[in-house]
Structures are given as C-alpha cells and as structure tokens.
C-alpha cells in the first residue's frame, strides 16, 4: 500500500484524530494488515503519537500488525458448532491450507482464525470466508468451497 492511498484514506476522514480507528479499519480491510510505515504516516498526518496508535492497533483483534492472506477464513468453534463437528472442519481447512489458526501461508493466500460464535448457531458448523458465511458445512463441502479462492 503506497503513501498516496494512505493519504487518500486519511483525507476521506478529514484527517481527524477522532477518526483514527476508522482510518485504521479502512487500511486494514484494504491491505489486510497495518504495516509500521503506514502507522507512522497516519501518526504524522493526524498528529497522534505512535505509542497511542500502537496501543489501539494491538488492542483490537480486528487489526493485524503482521501480513495477512488475501482471504481470511474464520472457523467457528463455539459450543453449537463444536458439537456439530467444527473440529473436523478445522482439520480439513488446516489440511488444505497447510496452516494452523493464527497463521498465514507463505503465498499470502489464506489466513486462518478460529472464533467463538458467529451468532448463527442454527447454521453450524459455520465457516466464514472474507465475511461470507458458509453454513451447515461438512468437511467435503469445505474443501470444495476453498477451491473457489485464488
């Protein structure tokens, strides 16, 4: 992500320090992670010390300070999904992507994360990829769905 794009995002929020979290969220969703250079740039532009930005960026789980894959997989391992076989779904995804929860593959294709309930337990086991919810998943269906992502 280049400085021009970062500046554009900051300008969109009128360079307001009070919009800091919104700016970070925009960059996170576009770039999938927050590089240190971006944080420094934001700090300069909106006049907020880097210590504060770091505190916020490490506080919320929505932000990542390490590179993330193009596709973010969230596997629900909440109680309802767990009893409906979330562990087997997780195994399938680990097998297919070669990564464990919290990791990103070397090609920056996938990042894998487990979550503790996506709020749609009736659809369990639930897998969310790039914000899209896939319900009533089986290991086979999960492997098929993953093939759709490049």
């Amino acid at each position, binding site marked *: 992500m280049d400085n021009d794009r970062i500046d554009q995002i900051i300008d969109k929020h009128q360079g307001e320090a009070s919009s800091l979290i919104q700016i970070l969220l925009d960059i996170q969703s576009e770039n999938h992670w927050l590089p240190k250079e971006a944080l420094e740039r934001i700090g300069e532009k909106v006049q907020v010390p880097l210590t504060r930005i770091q505190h916020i960026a*490490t506080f919320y789980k929505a932000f990542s300070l390490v590179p993330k894959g193009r596709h973010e997989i969230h596997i629900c391992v909440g109680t309802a999904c767990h009893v409906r076989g979330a562990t087997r779904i997780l195994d399938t995804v680990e097998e297919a992507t070669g990564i464990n929860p919290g990791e990103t593959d070397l090609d920056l294709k996938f990042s894998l994360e487990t979550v503790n309930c996506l709020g749609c337990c009736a659809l369990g086991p639930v897998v969310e990829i790039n914000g899209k919810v896939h319900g009533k998943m089986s290991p086979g269906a999960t492997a098929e769905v993953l093939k759709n992502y490049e």
Partner: protein
Amino acid sequence: MSEIQFEIDGKEVKATEGMTILEAAQNVGIFIPTLCHHEKLEPFGGCRVCIVEVEVNGWTKLVVSCVYPVEENIIVRTRSEKVDRIRKTIIELLMAHAPDSPQLQDLAQEYGADKDRFEKDASFCIHCGLCVRYCAEVVKKNAIGFVDRGINKEISFIPEIAAKECNDCKECFPLCPTSYLQAAFVLTEALAFPPPSSEPVSEE
C-alpha cells in the same frame, strides 16, 4: 468555583469543586495510599489501592479516590474494615505481578497482605502507566506506550524515538513502583532487538 464541605475520617474538610477526594485528603494531611497517582499527571485510576468508602445519604459505596470528585456532605472513610479488606486483596493481586516491589511490600505489611495468595505471574509491571503517562504528558516525547490488552498488556518503547531521546532523559525509570529496572530492561530490549520491520537504529 464553589466550596464544598464534607467529611473524611470524621474530620470536616473543605475543598473546591472539581477536586478529587485524594487531593482534598492530602490537603488536610490525611494519608491515602497510592501507586499510580502522580501530581504532575492527569488522574488515571489504574492501581485501585487508593480505594475508599463513600457514604451518600446513608448509602455506602466504594470509589477510587484519585479520580472521584468531591461532593457536598459525603462521608469518606479511608480505613474502614471493608476498605482495609478490599485494599488488602488489591495489594495481593498486584503482588502476583510484582512480588518484590518495595512499595507493595510496605503496603502488604500495613494491611497484612499475603504476597503468595495468588499464583505468581511475575511480569513486574502493574500497569500503573506512570512511565507511559509521564513520557506523554510531561516529557512529551511519547517514547514509551502500552501494547496489547488484558493479561498480555505490556509497556513497549518505540525504538526510533527511544534511541534519540531516552538516553539523556530516563526520568520515567525512578517513577516505577515495582522496580527501577523494569523500564530500563524494556528499553534495552527495544534498542537491542528492534522489531524486524523497523528501520535500523542509527548509531549516535
């Protein structure tokens, strides 16, 4: 600014509106223990040892005196049986993180706290934020900040700023209630092992 009258430990006290209970108590020489309070810094309310009991219209509640503003006719107790009991637990919790802190050891003696009551998780930092806030509010360099949250929260220097500023300052070191060395250690660590994504720190 209107004057406010109330009572601390049975003593009539006058204070001005907007003052905290702690300030008012200190003004009349009543001692309330504190760990995260510093007169040059904004109230923070992080350590909770300054907890006191406040009675308003017959109802009592526990408040943190370094952030609680004085009110007309309240009755403050800095050492009731309840306050002592809760303060003791707070000290015990803090000691799970910093068992060797001299300030905590003194408090433990005073309140009969058992430093081994809770399982040790000696991070040496009790998140009082004195170093962080002093650097931001007084020195205005923002070289040190908090990262992460909950049990993983810790202090962290920004290597680029620290390399330039900290060597000549170090004013935050002696503020730490747990050990003078805590900030020093984290600073050394930040300078010696800057995170890989950062630019190399220039030699001075």
